[in-house]
């Protein structure tokens, strides 16, 4: 038996994770990748930048979540 609400919930979860991923990829590309494209591979600097960028994005995500929660309590 298929509960359509469950499907809708799963779809929304997938949508929200995909959206988060795409936004992180976009932001970190802007912040870390030079648009001069001197080579096909990521440079060491770019690779490290990406690692740190993704990590910071998640931290910001959490911080904002906490702030919003406090807002909701007032």
């Amino acid at each position: 038996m298929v509960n359509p609400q469950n499907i809708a919930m799963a779809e929304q979860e997938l949508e929200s994770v995909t959206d988060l991923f795409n936004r992180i990829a976009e932001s970190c590309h802007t912040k870390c990748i030079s648009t001069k494209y001197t080579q096909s591979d990521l440079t060491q600097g770019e690779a490290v930048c990406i690692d740190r960028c993704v990590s910071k994005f998640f931290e910001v995500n959490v911080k904002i979540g906490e702030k919003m929660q406090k807002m909701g309590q007032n």
Partner: protein
Amino acid sequence: MDFSRFNQAEQAQIAAMIEHKQMKDFLRLYSNLVQRCFDDCANDFTTKTLTGKEGECVNKCADKFLKHSERVGSRFAELSENMQAPGSQ
């Protein structure tokens, strides 16, 4: 994302939904990449075909974006298994 809390029938429908989304996502990636590499690489309008340099730029642009995306994906997977992102249960 763990969908094991749903029954078989629901999981089948979810799998089909995921496949559909992946296809949409692939098309979006394609369109996005064309836009990006065009914007970043095609800047010489003294000719109507891509110059050699522009062509190489496009290749590197695409390769680089895909490698970037892959790396972001790895870090993303690692970090999201450690925390519950707000908005999901």
